[in-house]
């Protein structure tokens, strides 16, 4: 029986898991880097222990130290979240060897799916279609890859064997440019994952990136929780996801779901996992990879299915059977997630660092915000620039879009630039509204300007406000303090509690 869980992560996903634990009556252990001493996940947990300095390699990637902390604090299990150690089979194995429960799949499943070549072979044997590419023979040299490339055909992708999140990925349109791109892909893979193996894969144009969420218990039961549409990406980073996909019909959903379950069973999968597919415009689908962990965008599935994926992970880790069958899984309405990042969409999505001094979260019907950020939080260059995930639910996709517009306008973040204007522009774009987009849409066809200019703007109002604020500042600086008329009216009285002015 799990009564205490260590969460080997930081930021929003750490808080998300802490909340699930709290709702299950489970004690929690947080770990943190020096940069995160004040972080929400540290304050929220029952216990918290320092890992080391800010860089991940000296803190959140220190698997041995994390296991030691789990043992010393009496935690019976470790939840890795996503990123960091989540897909390191050696870590999962070390957790098991230490007599602890790893809240995720068995190390063998991580191994099988973690090496993309092995993964492709495994699922192919199980009858799952894969994208044409260099598979099977393992780590090829540049010369070998250059020889195989014309057989696959251009355009194609160079991808890191150990990779994910677009790191070490390069698009190649002809053989001439390939040697240089191989070099830079290997360099990026090395720095991100510690190894520089890459492989080639046919680039399917006009493709959609669609993934199937699965849940598998320790008793061989596997169900899928329908699809997530993740085609809106920039530099292979997902920006916005929705479920269900406006492109997928019920027949295709059932076929993809059945294949996803097959893929999971092929590696005797346990816990939550995601099978990513490319779907071409003719609705052929190809296995891309399996993410053997909780996914960033899991909340949209939670909102349309009513299943709490993190709680299910914990229940599965406790040895429980899934409490529902495939037939119980319904699609109720539609959900959209916008990843709110500290980056400036008007300036080439440049990351923005600094302190968030003020923040107003959108609230009210159908809105969920998952975040680890708070007023006073400093966005550092050490970790990814995600501020929060803004997730909405609507009775229909149209209602969800309208609600997301409302939420984005309500959301106020002061202190850093954010990509909220990008999401606003996206919600206003006809292509998004029509559901007609693929993985190239954001980079190749979408523009911040073309659509923004149609919107009503209020430069005159901004001018009035700016001037009045500046005028008040000037007046105050000159010690010409006038009393506000309202402050002397008869409805004013003494406030009982004064804020602690620090």
């Amino acid at each position: 029986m799990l009564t205490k869980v260590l969460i080997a992560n930081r930021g929003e996903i750490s808080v998300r898991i802490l909340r699930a634990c709290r709702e299950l009556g489970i004690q929690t252990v947080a770990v943190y880097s020096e940069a995160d001493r004040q972080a929400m996940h540290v304050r929220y947990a029952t216990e918290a222990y320092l890992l080391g300095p800010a860089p991940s390699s000296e803190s959140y990637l220190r698997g041995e130290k994390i296991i030691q902390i789990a043992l010393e604090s009496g935690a019976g299990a470790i939840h890795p979240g996503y990123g960091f150690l989540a897909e390191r089979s050696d870590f999962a194995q070390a957790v098991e060897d230490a007599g602890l429960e790893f809240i995720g799949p068995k190390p063998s499943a991580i191994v099988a799916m973690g090496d993309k070549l092995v993964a492709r072979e495994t699922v192919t044997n199980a009858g799952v279609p894969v994208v044409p590419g260099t598979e099977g023979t393992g780590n090829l040299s540049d010369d070998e890859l250059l020889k195989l490339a014309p057989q696959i055909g251009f355009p194609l992708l160079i991808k890191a064997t150990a990779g994910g999140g677009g790191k070490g990925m390069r698009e190649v349109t002809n053989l001439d440019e390939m040697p240089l791109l191989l070099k830079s892909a290997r360099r990026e893979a090395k720095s991100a994952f510690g190894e520089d193996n890459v492989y080639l894969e046919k680039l399917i144009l006009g493709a959609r990136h669609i993934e199937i969420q699965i849940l598998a218990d320790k008793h061989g039961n596997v169900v899928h929780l329908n699809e997530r549409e993740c085609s809106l990406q920039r530099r292979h980073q997902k920006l916005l996801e929705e479920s269900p996909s406006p492109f997928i019909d019920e027949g295709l959903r059932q076929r993809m779901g059945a294949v996803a379950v097959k893929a999971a069973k092929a590696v005797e999968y346990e816990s939550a996992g995601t099978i990513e597919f490319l779907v071409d415009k003719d609705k052929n689908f190809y296995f891309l990879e399996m993410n053997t962990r909780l996914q960033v965008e899991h909340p949209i599935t939670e909102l349309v299915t009513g299943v709490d994926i993190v709680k299910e992970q914990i229940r599965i880790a406790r040895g429980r059977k899934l409490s529902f069958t495939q037939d119980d899984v319904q699609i109720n309405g539609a959900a959209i997630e916008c990843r709110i990042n500290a980056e400036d969409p008007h300036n080439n999505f440049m990351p923005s660092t600094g302190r968030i001094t003020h923040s107003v979260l959108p609230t009210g019907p159908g809105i969920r915000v998952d975040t680890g950020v708070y007023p006073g939080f400093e966005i550092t260059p050490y970790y990814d620039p995600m501020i929060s995930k803004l997730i909405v639910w609507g009775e229909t996709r149209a209602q969800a879009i309208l609600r997301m517009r409302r939420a984005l306008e309500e959301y106020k973040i002061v202190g850093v630039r954010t990509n909220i204007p990008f999401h606003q522009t996206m919600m206003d774009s006809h292509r998004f509204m029509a559901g007609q987009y693929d993985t190239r849409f954001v980079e190749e066809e979408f523009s911040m300007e073309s659509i923004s200019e149609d919107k009503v703007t209020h430069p005159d109002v901004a001018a009035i406000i700016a001037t009045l604020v500046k005028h008040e500042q000037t007046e105050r600086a000159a010690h010409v303090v006038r009393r506000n008329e309202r402050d002397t009216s008869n409805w004013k009285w003494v406030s009982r509690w004064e804020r602690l002015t620090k």
Partner: protein
Amino acid sequence: MKYITTIDGKEFLVEIIDDRHISLDGKIVKVDFESVESQPVFSLIVDGKSYEAYVYEGGEDLEILVKGKLYHSRVEDERERRLRAASGGLVVQSGPYHLKAPMPGLVVSVVVEEKQEVKQGDVLLILESMKMQNELKSPRDGVIGRIQIKAGDSVEQRQKLLSVE
């Protein structure tokens, strides 16, 4: 620096040793204490246990919200403590209790009369505010002293209403 800190009536002797150590009732405790920039939010880690606190001033005291529970605290250094002891401040129970309006409102009725004996919990008067009729009760046994308002009066926050002696 030594402090006598009272939490909801319970006293603790707290000595600040250095930035990382205090002594609590004579026992040395290693503390890791941080505040969030510009926010009334604090984080304390003691022996791995993590506590988040929201701290704000309520009158002379600090109110400390920890794990959903609000604690009322009074922190005094030794000099302050001696001063208060000397002035008899430690014996709060004696002396008249002045009932003040907890909020602005309209006096609906005064239930007691001057010189009337009252028990703790007896209703003294009814004040209408926020669309509600609120019963103000006696915090202890005593005799009603001067009544400074009457039914129908509008009163301001903290205005003296009557005393219990």
